[in-house]
């Protein structure tokens, strides 16, 4: 039994070698997938190209440390890089002591007017007094629309009936705001196409004569390849200070945001997540990066892998193993990382070909986390001396440990026996990273290691190990709880 386990592990270790670093060759498939996914998310073609070059350069030579294979490592790196590019965050409106003027601009229907209302709501929440300015003289009922929002919010709206010069309207609004001690003026401009020179010049005129403190580009989350063109035109005309992407409450991947960020370089301030005036959220690059990239399953795996063992922990552990100092304490650390709720199943479920295993854990009465926790409880009941050198555990110590952990003494025996198997394997796996260790844990699980209640063979018909009745289990659980409380008090 143990020999075949060891064989299995060694061959696993062998296949893992050579996957150690990212190379052009082992990244190719993943990069192809990433490129396709970004294009499907509507990131503009040239932005995808620039990004792919950047990521490839960054990723080359990176150690495949925690993920299961190079592709997954690459996708993790891509996501990190996306987060970098979409950041840094700056949700501040940079209000000044005196009147601050914000101007919103963008294409027709992108959500400017609604976002004006949302910003006013945000300001009210922060005890600043805003005023809205109806500078869209183009769209029928645009002024009414802003007035309705103003009424809903209890915020004044400045508008001029029959006006036809938005520059004048904005200038007059500034005067009025100063008279009335308004803190923040929000200019709602008409939508315009980037190629409409006349209207773009009009926007420049507002910018020059009114001098808004912050100019935000409002972009629809469903925008496609054209995002680069409009972002460039608005940024060239106005020098944008921020970007707000709307309509992200649907299923749009929002890749246009990457295009806009690439072109303008200005911070992404907020995202719009609904039609109601409270549906404005500060921008979070991590969530958005995942959304744009897609590949949720792989990212979940990468996250889980990173969660299980941090780079630092891994290095420390590897050093220990190499030095032959792998003790039951270290084993405990390993187990602890796997006994986080849901983690084991998630991890296993995500592994290629391990779906069956996950199902078993669901339906087959297997409780890997519970098993890991039980092993930890056994180790916890040992003295430090026992953990360093399990050989000293005699029947009387065994009885004490078992009682402390709420298990039968035979389970302590099983743990020690199997630790003796694990230690050399761990040693042989030094430097193999997370993947190797995952495999080891799986093998151990199959060997029955994770179920000290039964020991090897418990899952087969031949198994004679006694299965605890629910009543016995409950009793044991109680005992364990008691023991845990006792320890907590003692420490």
């Amino acid at each position, binding site marked *: 039994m143990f020999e075949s386990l060891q064989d299995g592990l060694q061959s696993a270790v062998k296949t893992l070698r050579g996957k150690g670093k990212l190379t052009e060759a082992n990244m190719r498939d993943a990069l192809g997938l990433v490129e*396709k996914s970004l*294009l*499907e*998310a*509507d990131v*503009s*073609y*040239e932005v995808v190209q620039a990004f792919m070059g950047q990521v490839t350069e960054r990723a080359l030579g990176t150690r495949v440390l925690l993920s299961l294979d190079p592709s997954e490592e690459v996708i993790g790196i891509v996501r990190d890089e996306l987060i970098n590019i979409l950041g840094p965050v700056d949700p501040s409106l940079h209000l000044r002591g005196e009147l601050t003027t914000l101007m919103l601009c963008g*294409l*027709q*229907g*992108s*959500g400017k*007017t609604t976002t004006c209302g949302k910003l006013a709501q945000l300001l009210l929440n922060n005890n600043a007094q805003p005023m809205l300015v109806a500078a869209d003289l*183009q*769209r*029928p*009922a*645009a002024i*009414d*629309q*802003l*007035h*309705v*929002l103003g009424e*809903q919010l209890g915020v004044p709206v400045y508008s001029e009936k029959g006006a036809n010069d938005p520059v004048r309207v904005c200038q007059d609004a500034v005067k009025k705001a100063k008279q009335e001690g308004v803190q923040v003026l929000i200019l709602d401009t008409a939508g315009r*196409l*980037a*190629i409409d020179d006349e209207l773009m010049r009009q926007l420049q005129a507002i910018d020059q004569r009114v001098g808004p403190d912050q100019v935000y580009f409002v972009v*629809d*989350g*469903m*925008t*496609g*390849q*054209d995002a680069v*063109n*409009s972002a460039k035109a608005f940024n060239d005309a106005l020098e944008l200070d921020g970007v707000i992407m709307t*309509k992200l*409450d*649907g*299923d*749009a*991947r929002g*890749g*246009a945001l990457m295009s806009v960020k690439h072109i303008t370089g200005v911070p992404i301030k907020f995202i719009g997540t609904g*039609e109601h005036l409270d549906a404005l959220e500060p921008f979070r690059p991590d969530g958005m990066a995942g959304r744009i990239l897609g590949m949720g399953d792989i990212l979940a795996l990468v996250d889980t892998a990173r969660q299980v063992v941090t780079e630092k922990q891994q290095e420390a552990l590897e050093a220990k193993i190499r030095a032959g100092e792998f003790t039951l304490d270290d084993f405990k650390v390993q187990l602890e990382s796997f006994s986080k709720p849901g983690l084991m199943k998630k991890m296993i479920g995500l592994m290629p070909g391990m779906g069956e295993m996950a199902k078993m854990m669901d339906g087959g009465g297997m409780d890997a986390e519970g098993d890991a926790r039980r092993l930890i409880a056994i180790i916890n009941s040992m003295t430090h001396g026992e953990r360093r050198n399990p050989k000293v555990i005699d029947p009387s110590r065994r009885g004490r440990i078992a009682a402390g952990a709420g298990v039968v003494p035979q389970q302590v025996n099983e743990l020690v026996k199997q630790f003796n198997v694990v230690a050399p394997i761990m040693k042989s796996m030094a430097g193999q990273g997370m993947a190797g260790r995952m495999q080891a844990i799986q093998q151990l699980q199959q060997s029955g290691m994770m179920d000290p209640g039964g020991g090897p063979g418990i899952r087969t018909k031949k198994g004679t190990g006694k299965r605890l009745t629910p009543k016995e289990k409950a009793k044991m659980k109680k005992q364990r709880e008691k023991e845990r409380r006792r320890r907590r008090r003692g420490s």
Partner: protein
Amino acid sequence: MGIFDRKKPDKAGDKTAQGGFLGLFKRGLEKTSQLLQTDVRDLFKEGDRLVDDDFLNELFAILVKTDMGAGPAAEIRDKIKADFRSRKIEMADALQTVKDQLLELMQQPEAPIDRAASGPTVILVVGVNGSGKTTSIAKLTKMFINEGSQVVLGAADTFRAAAVQQLTIWAERLGAEIVKGEPSSDPASVAHRAVARAIELNADVCIIDTAGRLQTQTSLMQELGKIRRVIGKQIPDAPHEAILVLDATAGQNGISQARGFSEAADCSGIVLAKIDGSAKGGVVIPIRREFNLPVKFVGVGEQAEDLALFNAHDFVEAMFAEHFAGQR
């Protein structure tokens, strides 16, 4: 055939339905490549380039930038690669073969609006937020009025601030009858009253405006079904058209929009708004392929007259116009 399968029988009954896009594409390319083998292949032209990776990447970039999607773009690229590999060809010629195929796919019959045999023709207009529904309704209204038709509008967007006022302004400007609802009132009841009014007036056309909604908002999507049913009870066969207004700047989400709105409102066609900008609106290509949803009109501006019949030839030409600058 994967994504080339047609999901719905073609309502318009045009002949491009058989064999799907790939079939058409192949057939067309066969013609063109035969032509190329005889005429062009051995004629060395200035600007001819070897069909190599560079050439294919450039072609792919041009295609992707139309918003047709990476999948369709890759297929077209691979087909060009298979047919022209290691030969010399001008990019413009390669694009011409692409255009010919897209043209065949997007071709559709002239009569864009399915009119009722008798009584009012009811048109339901749906789409995501801000796509251009209300403005497109104004444009359609103007078109019908110019034809001498009487139009009743139903302002069933009772949600968005001043949406009713917006349609009211258009109705006044254009001389259409309008039926309104109170803010937050039931849109189906507004639709019902609008159709009733159209019947009463024996109007020719009744157009129902609806609030923008995202296709993922299931209860709002179900509301569209309810509006349809209410209308159908008043006039069998109504609504005669359910028009999805798609923003030409939309990217791949347009596919999801077409799917969602087709399912919820059984759309019969598309108005592609805002085509007057720099966006190409290429997402209607996979939409046509997957849902066989024809584009009926394009919106080319913010005014009531800024509506044009969709013309497949012009559309396809415009998709690649800059790559033909200075040619012929």
